[in-house]
């Protein structure tokens, strides 16, 4: 088990370096000069050359990557072109809001998904199963940004119960756990939770169905075990796979929040990414993507380790 974990950790290193390489290259696949955003339109050739040297753009790409990586390792992702502030600080401030949203959405989506999935799997091929499965299919097929709009139309425009955009009263950007702020979280969190709800439902339903059709369940029932006891076995057997799926979904919620954050003007990393794209703020774009991707890589690592820890069948030595 320790061999497995350490191997898994070592395997992360090349992944992290390649992720950094992809983020680094992003700036270089952009059409035109990476200087375009900083350089005034009427800049002279000398100024352009000076700036190019100052930013290090005149060196060969591998050298640039090495230097960039070295600075990134020290937490220096450069400064945002739009605000002039350090990228890392900007991203970290925004990521906090995204994490809040993702975790609340995960609690809603995973709870619903597990419950619906267990019920659907247990009552397979009955009308209960059909209802739960329809929910799941709708959840994975709905364009979530549109669902967000529809929820705003119903609960903000028509009923006027909940605020439509923002993350707190008076455009406040700092999160607090009180009702004044929570009101702003309800709609984005429900919107975010729909896809994981659908996927977890489908996973848990399939797992439950598979486990219930295995011989050992028959044996447990034949020995006279009560249905709640059978259920405990189902949960224990389904947990590792379900956990892996949920971990992945949490990662998708953190990294894929841009559409929902745009709909609700939620001041998180996705919103930051959106403004970085449209202001052509390449260092900010690069830094945000790097940090979100690293989050995802480490979350996957944690999930793998947790899975190995709770599943005695995993002895990938």
């Amino acid at each position, binding site marked *: 088990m320790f061999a497995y974990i350490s191997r898994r950790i070592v395997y992360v290193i090349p992944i992290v370096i390649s*992720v950094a390489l992809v983020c680094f290259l992003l700036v270089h696949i952009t059409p035109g000069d990476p200087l375009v955003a900083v350089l005034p339109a009427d800049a002279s050739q000398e100024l352009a050359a000076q700036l190019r040297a100052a930013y290090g753009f005149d060196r060969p790409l591998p050298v640039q990557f090495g230097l960039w990586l070295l600075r990134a390792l020290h937490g220096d992702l450069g400064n945002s072109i739009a605000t002039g502030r350090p990228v890392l600080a900007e991203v970290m401030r925004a990521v906090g809001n995204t994490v809040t949203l993702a975790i609340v959405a995960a609690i809603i989506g995973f709870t619903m998904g597990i419950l619906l999935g267990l019920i659907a799997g247990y009552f397979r091929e009955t009308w209960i199963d059909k209802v739960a499965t329809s929910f799941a299919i709708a959840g994975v097929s709905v*364009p979530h*940004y*549109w669902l967000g*709009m*529809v929820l705003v139309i119903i609960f903000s425009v028509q009923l006027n119960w909940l605020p439509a955009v923002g993350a707190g009263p008076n455009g406040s950007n700092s999160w607090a756990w009180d009702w004044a702020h929570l009101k702003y979280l309800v709609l984005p969190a429900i919107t975010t939770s729909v896809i994981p709800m659908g996927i977890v439902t489908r996973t848990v339903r399939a797992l439950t169905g598979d486990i219930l059709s295995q011989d050992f369940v028959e044996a447990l029932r034949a020995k006279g075990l009560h249905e709640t006891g059978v259920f405990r076995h189902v949960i224990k057997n389904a947990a590792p796979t379900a956990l892996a799926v949920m971990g992945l979904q949490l990662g998708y919620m953190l990294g894929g929040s841009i559409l929902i954050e745009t709909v609700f003007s939620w001041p998180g990393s996705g919103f930051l990414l959106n403004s970085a794209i449209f202001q052509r703020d390449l260092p900010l774009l690069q830094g945000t993507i790097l940090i*979100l991707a690293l989050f*995802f*890589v480490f979350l996957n690592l944690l999930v793998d380790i947790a899975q190995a820890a709770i599943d005695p069948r995993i002895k990938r030595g």
Partner: protein
Amino acid sequence: MSELPLSATADAALQAAPATRARGYWATVGRRIARDKVSMACALVLLLIFLSAILAPWLGLEDPYKGSMIRRLRHIGTVGYPLGTDELGRDMLARLIYGGRLSLVIGILPVILAFCIGTSLGLVAGYVGGKLNTAIMRTIDVFYAFPSVLLAIAISGALGAGIVNSIVSLTVVFVPQITRVAESVTTGVRNMDFVEAARASGAGPFTIMRVHILGNVLGSIFVYATSLISVSMILAAGLSFLGLGTKPPEPEWGLMLNTLRTAIYVNPWVAALPGAMIFAVSICFNLLSDGLRSAMDIRN
């Protein structure tokens, strides 16, 4: 063809036997899916949407580009404008139907491209194995380190707005996923006896991959690819919704949703219409893909 497999003659023998007239695999799949009501209903809805998009210019619709300041944001059910008008006074019905043209292309084309590229990569990686497999699959792993929405937005954001860029970025998102599936099914088939037999009778690697392996793995990869269309439709429209795909005044569902966002206080249900189209197409493809999957799972 010198590499005619032994199994082919065996199949011919089976088919010749009158009592057990073996039906082809795909014919069986077709019959099974034709009996599935949900799949057929979805296929019908999709057929209607596709046909109306293709035939849009001949349906006698209003001009989807022509607006009018005096008839902006009419409600659903207005005389002459059954689905209302948008923020520039353009007929919503016409825009929704014309919008299908671009929306369907930018949603489905990335999956088709990724299907071709991913299948080739996966087939080569799975059949050749060894160092080439490691090289291809480890490169693919890097893309798995990004959540797919983030990857699509990162590439689109770096390349800049535009239809081509949006198709490119979504193709890059789906290639790794299809490659992984293709590689794993190919690895499962490559050591089977009929491949060995073909190799023994002198078939080259290209012929084996094309004739013997592709036919056996294409079905699984195809089903997997159809399940991606729903995601691709949502993401493609999402990129346009963010302003990274189609540019105004083109009618496209994601972009329409974006420009109508400001209208939700005036005429909310008209504003929500383009999203309903994305939802309809996406859920139909999902259900159809599920139906296809269970129809192809013949052993079950």
